[in-house]
């Protein structure tokens, strides 16, 4: 693998950039791997990466129906934060956030993690109390957050209207070390690093069946033939229910569309990420200058990556109230992704009823920020066969046992 650096660019500039290698190889699948990961999105690739890095397991294939990073990894609003209320959530998201901090150096790929700060606005007395509670919890969880007043909010985000009229800003939960990253680069950086370790990233390869012997997984049938494996990791977000069905079990998952949009690019107007849960909208400005906007998930289950227009309207109205200048910008593009929602809106990183088969799903509207932590925990689960401390509480059997990890009070609509 050619190391990326300013020096490498200078060297290539002198020879018309002819020396660059493929970022990742595109091999044909082998007959058998130690581990097959289904899904080359951020979570699947991160799982493979930490299998190699933390456990030395590199006879791994990551197989992908479409193009790598093409699911929710490539269509989210790139927010990274860990200001969660419940202990298990705070632990895994904070692990992820801390891994993001050094990811560019770790992968030798600039994922542009930008700790520009994330604020969650409190616009009702109830929300004030809720965020103060989160601040208290975060203190004991080792997550740095602070409840700030309206004046500090305005100082950090001068384009914000904090005076209402409907929902004046009463304060905000501020996580200075949260921020954003370049979503595609996260997938590409992991894919490049996995490939460099000798793993096979196999795109355009759809899984059409899961084969087992004596209650243990033995292979996956794919459009590129049958691929044997000792262990199988299913990391496919919105289509998890579909894959679980092939593996012979059911999941407590609903799939719904979550939409986002960007404005045309403008010169820097807002440095931090703002989430406004009372009015249902969140926004940041990308390095390219677009205002990146998201809101709540659609209210009905579906698999189209589109969604319904009234959600865009609701989100936009909320954000015009919060940032009146938006009114004179234009929407450049809207899109949707399919998010997999569990009953408590927290993820699943779990053993499954099929032996040596593990699943990582249910990240709902909040998966991007979790990618490295999720991959870390999933790799440990696959390598050891048992969950470690990060994954332990996220078993798929918790719903049967009543061990919910419900963030609804803290996370509100927007992850």
């Amino acid at each position, binding site marked *: 693998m050619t190391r990326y*650096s*300013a020096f490498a*660019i200078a060297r290539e500039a002198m020879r*018309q*950039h002819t020396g660059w*290698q493929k970022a990742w190889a*595109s091999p044909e699948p082998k007959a058998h791997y130690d581990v097959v990961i289904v899904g080359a999105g951020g979570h699947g690739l991160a799982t493979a990466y930490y299998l190699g890095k933390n456990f030395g397991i590199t006879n791994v294939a990551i197989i992908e129906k*479409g*193009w790598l*990073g093409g699911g929710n990894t*490539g269509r989210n609003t790139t927010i990274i934060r860990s200001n969660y209320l419940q202990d298990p959530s705070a632990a895994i998201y904070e692990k992820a956030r801390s891994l993001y901090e050094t990811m*560019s*150096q770790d992968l*030798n*790929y*600039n994922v542009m*993690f*930008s700790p*520009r700060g994330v604020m969650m606005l409190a616009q009702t*007395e109830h929300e004030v*109390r809720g965020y103060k509670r989160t601040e*208290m919890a975060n203190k*004991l969880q080792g997550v740095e957050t602070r409840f700030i007043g309206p004046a500090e909010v305005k100082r950090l985000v*001068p*384009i914000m209207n904090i005076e209402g009229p*409907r*929902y004046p800003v009463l304060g905000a939960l501020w996580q200075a070390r949260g921020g954003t990253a370049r979503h*595609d*680069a996260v997938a*590409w950086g992991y894919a490049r690093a996995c490939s460099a370790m000798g793993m096979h990233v196999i795109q355009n390869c759809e899984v059409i069946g899961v084969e087992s012997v004596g209650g243990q997984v033995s292979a996956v049938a794919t459009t590129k033939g049958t691929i044997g494996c000792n262990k199988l990791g299913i990391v496919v977000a919105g289509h998890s229910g579909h894959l679980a069905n092939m593996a012979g079990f059911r999941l407590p998952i609903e799939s719904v569309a979550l939409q986002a949009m960007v*404005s*045309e*690019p*403008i*010169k*820097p*107007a807002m440095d931090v990420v703002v989430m406004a849960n009372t009015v249902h909208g969140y926004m940041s*400005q990308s*390095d*390219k200058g677009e205002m990146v906007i998201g809101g709540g998930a659609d209210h009905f289950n579906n698999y189209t990556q*589109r969604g*319904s*227009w009234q959600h865009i309207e609701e989100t*936009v*109205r909320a954000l015009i*109230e919060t940032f*009146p*200048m*938006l*009114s*004179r*910008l*234009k*929407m*450049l*593009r*809207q899109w949707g992704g399919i998010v997999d929602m569990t009953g408590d809106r927290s993820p699943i990183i779990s053993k499954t009823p099929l032996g040596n088969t593990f699943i990582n799903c249910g990240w709902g509207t909040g998966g991007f920020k979790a990618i490295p932590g999720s991959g870390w925990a999933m790799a440990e689960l696959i390598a050891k066969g048992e969950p470690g401390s990060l994954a332990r509480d996220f078993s798929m059997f918790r719903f049967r*046992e*009543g061990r*919910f990890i419900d963030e609804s009070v803290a996370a509100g609509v927007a992850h």
Partner: protein
Amino acid sequence: MSHRLGTGGRLIDRARPMDFTFNGKSMRGYAGDSLGAALLGAGQVLVGRSFKYHRPRGIVASGAEEPNALVGLGEGQRFEPNQRVTTTELFSGLKAVSQNHWPSLEFDVGAVNAKLWRFFPAGFYYKTFISPRPLWKHVYEPIIRRSAGLGKAPDAETRDADRYEQLYAYCDVIVAGGGVAGLKAARQAADEGKRVILTEQNPHFGGRAVVDGIEVEGQAAEDWVKAQVAALQAMPNVTVLDRTMVSGVYDHGYVLAYQRVADHTPGAEKPRHRLWRVRAGQVISATGAIERPLSFAGNDIPGVMLASAIRDFVVNYAVSPGKKVAIVTNNDDAYRTALALHAVGVTVPAVIDARKEVTGDLPAKARAAGIRVIEDCAVRYVEGGKSVTGVQLCRFNSDGGAVIETLACDALGMSGGWSPVVHLWSHCGGKLTWDEGRALFRPDANRPPLGHDGQGFVTCVGASNGEFDDEGEAAMLPVWLMPAQASYELRAKAWLDPQNDVKVSDVQLAAKEGYASVEHTKRYTTLGMATDQGKLSNINGLAILSDALGQPIPQTGTTTFRPPYTPISIGAIGGEARGGIFQPLRKTPIYDWHMAQGAYWEPVGHWRRPYCYPKTGETHGDAVKREINQVRKSVGLLDASTLGKIIVKGPDAGRFMDMLYTNMMSNLKVGKCRYGLMCNENGFLSDDGVVARLSEDTFLCHTTSGGADRIHGWMEDWLQCEWWDWKVHVVNLTEQYAQIAVVGPNARKVIEKVGADFDLSAESFPFMDWKEGKIGGIEARAFRISFSGELSYEIAVPASKGQAFWDKLMAAGAEFGVMPYGTEALHVMRAEKGFIMIGDETDGTVIPQDLGLNWAISKKKEDFLGKRGMEREAMVSPDRWQLVGLETLDGSVLPDGALAPLPGKNDNGQQETQGRVTSTYFSPTLGKGIAMGIVHNGPKRMGEVIQFQSAAGGTVAARIVDPCFYDKAGEKQNV
């Protein structure tokens, strides 16, 4: 040098000159001009700078596909960045400024990037700025952010001066595009009696036909179009909308049409934009086609334009981009531009044609007119900087690209063929097919977007469907790079996306590095991510990619077409719902009175409730304390109208109530009230309130203020989806009643003074009873329920009588010092009494048993919602945190949400805890801080002192006590 021609211009009115400014410089155009035409007419070729290299940019196109010529328009509250000059209609006094340069358009320091192009290939930022780590945040990224972006942000401190409108419409057929194909389609549907909406994004109809001057049905296009539009406008079943673009097609025939009502008349008493939300039976896309640029070195220099755009400017506005305009093409259509220029006296030094032999009718006409046609020829390099000075020519596909001639010219028209506008077909999943002959993607009629009935609901007609009126034209030659063997140096100067500075070499680099999916290439190079969303660049880019990968174009495929077709204003998406009415504001009947009293408001759902009523000089805390003291001492009034009031009625009402509530409700006696709990299927407490049985088959369910709509929906959900055969009807009457709580030791006296026609005494009307009658002559229903622990009557009267009733109570209570009290006093008093509050003691993770509410969970009932959930192992665990009261030893108020830390950390390094505060207040009644909380095994640990987090960061000691701090025996409320 661009200039205005002496005659012609089918759209302009030379009798009406209009003055405008560009970068402060005064210029003049004519009514009917686009801003782009006016700029070119005034000789302004350089209009902007590109995104990455800050290269000089001129107008390329004549319509919505324009990638370069974006300006800031207007001032102050009407400023808007990134407006396309080609779709902006000129008006007198228009002020435009160019973008993305410093210090000036002519001299831009950022252009140094262009000199360093070798170091800034596609994706260079993924490979560098990696270490040392802090530099990304503090140095690199801020520089990148500042140099990126396009227009300036609008002023943050002013609100948009314009208004926006939205409306719903329905039709059988919506036709997008008012060219010949669209007019014909609209007419046909209209003649069949269908309800038709016809939209045209421009102020004028006719599309290309009127520019090209063809004949339609034996008539000159100009006349035919006029007649058709007039006929359609006269038909009652047709709505004709100009300046209206169908921006998106959504599932089930939902269509957005974006009407620019008053962009050209700023300040007029009209909405600026109108967003039509149309439910259409069928969508007909008559959106035409967009000409493709050609990829040759220097194709981004101002003065290089689409051949069709030049024709538009000449014919529509009598504007020529130069005095000597060369044309480069791979097809016959571009000869129309050569002929149009020739016809108005502009010199066309040559038509440079990549084809070996040029044989069609149009080239023949051009030759006949004396225009030189150079066959098998390519533009090797465009000379010039801020404008074109000449072009170097070479053989298209031989001689290794050696220069054969340098042609002097000051503008260049280019045509690489046409791409149908298939966006509306594709938005909802319509698939495309590759037309090898014309080298274009057109709709695959066998794979249309499907409607609710499984049938296609979008049809493309005319050029949008890949049908061109090209009889007599010779075949085009697909040309994706010019010359075919262009060197790296040339490919690195051949722009695909001129706004984002993506060049042929960038796409080739992406392919080389394995970003082989078209989506990877797009994201790696930013190809097609500019404000034109690839309208000009996509096909050329993916052809280059296909070539680099050695695969046919259809195998590469396209990126996803997403709405909107072209950007639409965020103001229009928001519509009228802004400011005070951005969400519905629900007001109780007594709202105005509260307002007059200077209430401090608290939003509760869409309601606004008085938090307290501060008097002059009082803090909110002072006011709350005063209100509580007065209630406890004498009497206070609470406007409880927001409380949810849902009627459940029918023969199966009791059975239904037993399923909804954890308590037994079917055995409640008529005339009685009972406090009840509702849980979700998982057993978590979701709402609470008092139920009154109004008659044998009628229950009145009080819900929390914030929960009324949710609970109503919950009831309907169960009745409609699960128990559809139960004979129960529910109706939400929350807003039909004003409800006023008269609370305090003197409550009865106040009501007696107002005068009730029924007995109010404790004997006849005890606690948890309700009665109907007249109070003060007003029909009323009184409930003896209490959320404060005081003697209390909650009285519902018709909403229309709410204010009158409130006034009577205030008047009668005057001698007792009656005062209104707000939500905060309500909260504090309920906490003093140890009553739980949904949303404070509950958060979606708490079951009734956690809150000591086991008494409200029926053991007799076979089933109720949440019963099974509550039986799961973690729910019955003895280790659950349970409700207690908390008192600090020093009398201070515990902080909101404080946790009780334990020594030690869990496996994830988090501090262990044993409980948390759920509600915490200063109690004026007790003169100290009180709190409720849930604590591990709490009820068994009465009297124990444990530590909680303090506001200062340390801990504070609190004693576990009974949650009821006030009148545990109920002597105050049961009188």
